[in-house]
Structure formats: structure tokens, C-alpha cells
């Protein structure tokens, strides 16, 4: 079960990353849950300074970018094998 976190303050870019992440998770068929974290204190406490950011379990895999669905899929597949 993968814990997927999308972090961002609710701006357009963050929404776009959330959407792409949900699609990516569905496409890979992996088991997991997508959380959307908009609380700034929580975002900062995770060490993130640029939003939108993406975390897979405890690893920050991307900051400040709206990744493409296909890129997120490959990140998820690589992460699963670790």
C-alpha cells in the first residue's frame, strides 16, 4: 500500500498535479491512497518549500512542478521496487 501525498496550497498548479497523480495511480493499478495536503504548516514541517510537491511514502520525489501523468507513473513504479 503506497501512501501518496500531493502538497500544495490549493492553487491551479496544485490541483493539476493532484489530478495527474490520481490518474497515474489508477493507471499503474498499484494499491495506494492519494492524500491532498493543503495545510502550510504541515507542508513546511515536511521540509517542502516549493509547491506543488509530490511524496511517495516518505520520499519527496518532486517539488515545484506539475508532472505529467506518465512521469508520475514511472516514479511510482520505480518507487514500488525500492
Amino acid at each position, binding site marked *: 500500500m503506497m501512501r501518496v501525498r500531493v502538497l*500544495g*496550497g*490549493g*492553487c491551479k*498548479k*496544485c490541483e493539476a498535479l493532484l489530478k495527474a497523480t490520481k490518474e497515474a495511480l489508477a493507471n499503474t493499478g498499484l494499491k495506494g491512497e492519494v492524500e491532498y495536503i493543503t495545510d*502550510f*504548516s504541515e*507542508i*513546511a*514541517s*515536511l*521540509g*517542502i*518549500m*516549493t*509547491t506543488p510537491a509530490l511524496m511517495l511514502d516518505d520520499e*519527496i*520525489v*518532486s*517539488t*515545484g*512542478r*506539475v508532472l505529467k501523468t506518465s512521469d508520475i507513473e514511472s516514479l511510482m513504479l520505480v518507487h514500488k521496487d525500492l
Partner: protein
Amino acid sequence: MGTFIQNEILAMHWLNRLVASLLTMLGINVESRLGGSLQFFIYDVIKITILLCLLIFMISYIQSYFPPERSRKIMGRFHGVFANIMGALLGTVTPFCSCSSIPLFIGFTSAGLPLGVTFSFLISSPMVDLGSLILLMGIFGYRVAIVYVIMGLVIAVIGGTLIERLKLEDEVEDFIKNARAVEVKGVTLTKKDRLDYAFEQMTSTFKKVFPYILLGVGIGAIIHNWIPEDIIETILGNKNPFGVILATIVGVPMYADIFGSIPVAEALLSKGALLGTVLSFMMTVTTLSLPSLIMLRKAIKPKLLGIFIAICVVGIIIVGYLFNLLQPLLI
């Protein structure tokens, strides 16, 4: 050689001649008012679009080397006014959109960076960036561009130092002060990641900014060909000693990207507005805008926000008058 680069490469005068010949071939008289407006509009939209795409791509590539995590580390090594100078300089290269300003603020504050340094960064970041430097070179010449950047950095350093001196740490919202940020290893990027990032930035900025460019150039074209020179001279030129103040105050609530505001500035200048008046307007429009102020308000209390706005406005007004004085030497 210098003038060649200036006129043909940066300002793309060849493109203006090409547009004129094409319009003439279509039977449009570019000497007429309507034809002239059309020529200005087509030339300016193409020129700014080319510059925008090239610049955003290059700049984003460079910026990918300066994530805020790294800038924070660099700034932490400096003290006193040098930290403010570093903050102002790094503000020009660190990528940052207003929706990131809160986590960035928390990240800086909890790492122990002085409030003033954070503000030097926050002031210079939208006002001066690499894009504005090159764009200003293309339109107003390199002297104006260099002085603009230096002035922007000076405002950022002095503004940050002032905020530091005023001891306003209590004016930061509590959740920011109490937040504990941890230091994490940044995401490592490959060359391909950086190129992808630069390309994404270019396309998303283009999509976001293009309507503003059309609007800006449209307004520019109208000013260029339809508004009588003496009206502009009276309001924004030599005849009005309060032109700079007027331009700055009008610009505060407005938001435009520097790419959208430059065509307006260019047209006003050619119609007899003073350089400093026009540049003050541009600086205010890009630095202070309602959406970014609303975002910042979530992080800092009204008093500090007010001081921040006041410092920016006063700084920009002073710079505006200075540019008006220096105009004969710069253009």
C-alpha cells in the same frame, strides 16, 4: 557592433521592416493611422512572444540550479547587510510563484534567517529577474536595463534592512513562527529533468501571459497612434512634477507580467512620457499586486504588510525621480 546587437537582435528592427513590407504587399498603408497601429501590434506581439519563449526557457534552466533550499543555505552563510544583498541577488534567480510564498516564508524563518533577509528576497524576486534585464535591454537599451536592475536590488536591500531594524518579528503570523521546517535533501535533477522543467515553464508561462501580451500591446498600439502627444506629456511628462507618484499609485492594485507591461511602457515613452515615470509604473505593476498581497497577508500581520507596501512604493517613487533626472544620460 554594439548597436547592431541592440537594434537587430534584441530589438528585432528587421522584424518591424518585414511586417511593414508584408502589410504594404497586402495593400495596407503603414503610414496611415490604422496601418501603423496594425504594424506596431503584429511586430510587438511576435517580438515579445519570441523573447518570452527564449528567455523563460533559458532562465528556467538556470533557475533549476537554485531551488529555495539551496538559496536558503547560501543566504545563511552571510551576515548583516551582506545577507540582505545575497537575499536580493538570489531573489532574482530562485523560481517562486506567489502560491509558494507561505512554505517559502516558513522555510526561511524556521532556518533562522532574519526577517529582513527574507524580505530582501521577496522584494527583489518579482521586481528584478533575468527576464526583465534582457527584455529591458531589447527595448530601452542596455544602460537603462543595468540601472533598472541595480535600482531594484538597492530597493530590496534597503527595504529588507529597514524591516530588520524596525524589529517586526512579532508581526509574522504565529503559525509561521511556530512551524518547524526540517531540512531535507532536495530532489536530485538530471539534465533531462532540467530541460523538461524549462520547457514546462516556457509553455505554462506562455499560456498564462499571452492574453496580457495581447492586451498590453493592444493598449500600446492605441497609445502609439491614437492618443495625442500633448495629453501624455501633460500627465506623464515634463509638465507634471507628480507624474511618478501618480504612475506608482495607479500601478499598485494592477497586476501584469513584465512582458505585458513593457509594450505599454514603450509606447508611453515614445509619446513623451518620462523614463522614470514609465519605469515606476512597471516596477509597481510587477512587484505589488492584489493576488500576491492577499497571499502574503496570510503569512504576515496587517502592520508588516502595510510597511512592506509603503517601503516598496516609496522606493519605487524615489527610483522613478532618479531615472527622470538621469534620462538624458541613459537614452
